[in-house]
């Protein structure tokens, strides 16, 4: 159950409607619509899914079923600086797990959570395809390669000020 209650503004609803319309309100484009909407809001709170359901004429349960099926979709807002640890095989054998532990320790949160101040969130992802740089960590758009647990503090320090 979603713990976050959001009141959508008129313009948010209009934005979702516009996205749905750009796909001709076709139920078959549900996943494309959800991608676009998540791109807009950063996540997919229940209220947003309701508007999508209404516009695409798809049951809310089906949308929730799709959102919870695909790991790319999230109902929890990401931190300002989302930290993603690659846990693909190449990174795994090169010590990604230790790096992950270090991030958990430093940030004091579990995978899938955000820090209370909303600054960082922590997720795992499977193979970003930069196996030459394993283990790999992404913070926002930036990719860090060949990370050791000791580097974690320094990486986080880069985002201290904002």
């Amino acid at each position, binding site marked *: 159950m*979603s713990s976050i*209650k959001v009141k959508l503004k008129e313009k948010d609803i209009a934005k979702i409607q516009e996205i749905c319309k750009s796909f001709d309100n076709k139920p078959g484009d549900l996943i494309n619509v959800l991608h676009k909407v998540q791109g807009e809001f950063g996540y997919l709170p*229940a209220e947003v899914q309701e508007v999508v359901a209404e516009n695409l004429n798809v*049951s809310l349960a089906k949308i929730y*079923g799709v959102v919870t099926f695909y790991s790319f979709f999230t109902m929890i807002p990401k931190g300002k600086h989302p930290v993603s640890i690659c846990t693909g095989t190449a990174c795994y054998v090169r010590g990604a797990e230790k790096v992950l532990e270090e991030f958990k320790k430093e940030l004091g949160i579990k995978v899938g959570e955000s820090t209370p101040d909303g600054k960082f969130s922590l997720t795992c992802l499977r193979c970003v395809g930069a196996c030459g740089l394993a283990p790999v960590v992404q913070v926002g758009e930036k990719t860090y390669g060949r990370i050791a647990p000791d580097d974690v503090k320094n990486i986080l320090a880069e985002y201290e000020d904002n």
Partner: protein
Amino acid sequence: MIKLIIDKKTVEVEKGTTILQAAKNIGIHIPTLCYMNLGDLNIENKPGGCRVCVVEVDGRRNLAPACATDCAEGMVVHTHSIRVLNARKTVVQLILSDHPFDCLICAKSGNCELQDLAHKLGIREIPYQGEQSTYREDTSPAIIRDVDKCIMCRRCEVMCNEVQTVGVLSAINRGFQSVVAPAFEMNLDHSVCTYCGQCVNVCPTGALTEVDHTNQLINDLADPGKTVIVQTAPAVRAALGEEFGMEPGTLVTGKMAAALRELGFDYVFDTDFAADLTIMEEGTELLDRLSKHLNGDTNVHLPILTSCCPAWVKFFEHQFPEMKDIPSTARSPQQMFGAIAKTYFADKINVDRKKLVVVSIMPCVAKKYECSRDEFKVDGNPDVDYSISTRELANLIKQANIDFLGLEDADFDNPMGESTGASVIFGTTGGVIEAAVRTAYEVHTQKELPKVDFEELRGMEGIRSATIDFDGLPISIGIAHGLGNARKLLEDIKAGKSQYHAIEIMACPGGCIGGGGQPYIHGDTSILKARQKAIYQEDAQKTIRKSHENKYVQKLYEEFLGKPMSEKAHHLLHTHYFDRKKEVFID
């Protein structure tokens, strides 16, 4: 034709036949779990998910699910090789390893397909134990979801989405955590659920069951300060016998009345009485709207839609609220009964309505919800206190050590036990509108019907239509059962394409005989047909077969209500509907 060998027996089948069906043709019953085929209703669920029906096919690398694999020429199939038996057992053991072990006290015990399967396969241990997936239990006014017991057969999902098009249930999450649930795992009473109970009817385990009111009833019956009266819906008498091993389609009206009296009800009445009353009100409303329409009144909308079915009412309140002025305002028979019982009858026996407990026996779980609607209460006291299902009644009779089969037939009490053939057929699709036609014809034409039976309105087709000649005035009638079919007719009305004057809608496939509170049919749709036949048989046996000829109904109008659609009738027997579009809330 295709020839293949199953367990060393040669069998010839049509192209497109599954191994499961081909085996069945020669008497080999391959066990299934997720598979569901409601043949007469054209409903099939074969996700091939449970893997219980796997068989060995020579030349194939893996085992094949018999339910989803088509026969091919020259195929050699083994349904009970050691490889198959081991695999099948292991699969069931795996399912059990993620299932609560509370069989002894589970509401579905004795009726559980998983329990049966474990028994049939001789499973005596669960070697693979580990984490069990758990979810929050959800109790609504009518249905309990205990999805720890969900085995992901997806039958409920098919019923809710494809058959009923209600869209409350969907598979959610992924992998071990996946389960069938409403959006955001919200409670059913926050959703667009209609409580039709078709999910309950097809659930193989105890994941979906009805809310049980039997304990409350036992307490009320034992309370000397309360007068407890009961009404029984028409479809109950055509199915209750099944719970006692009787042939499907056996009418048990008399035994049922006797059993209810033995259980200790102070008065044993019949919802059929209220069904006749419903026809008086609804039929009059139909004629009223029809004549206004024919006289060119553009404020009057046609078709008129029946409103006896609470699941259907909730369906249009959620999905088509803009059309809420189209259905008849007549309350359902259950609620008409309650309203009359707690006024007219309570006065007659001089009992305060708060001391009078009105119980209904219904083939339905949505009726439990209907009783709880605020507009059917007076100062918080409900017209019908609660409703129990056919299944719950059978259970109660068993609890009370009543030898049901040995009971002598008994009659209902009066004044609310008298009914006509027209009211009995309320229990099947097509019945309400046929009953309405019988009365409306005679009231409108002032002539006696040449023939009471309207075969053209009967049947099992999902959507049917017929034109009835009202002595020169052709009345066009539509019938839908199953909410998916109802939706089609509603979409037509919305689009201005509907040609009907009146439409009957029942939420459950088959009508109330296939209701969510009826004995489980475990996929055997011939049972529905047998129940339907029994209903028409009871109608044919009745001496009076038109609602307006019910003497006690006539008396009720004389003594109490005046005439149909009178102000009093309006107050007690009619209702209004709500726009529930925005009512779904997320918490």
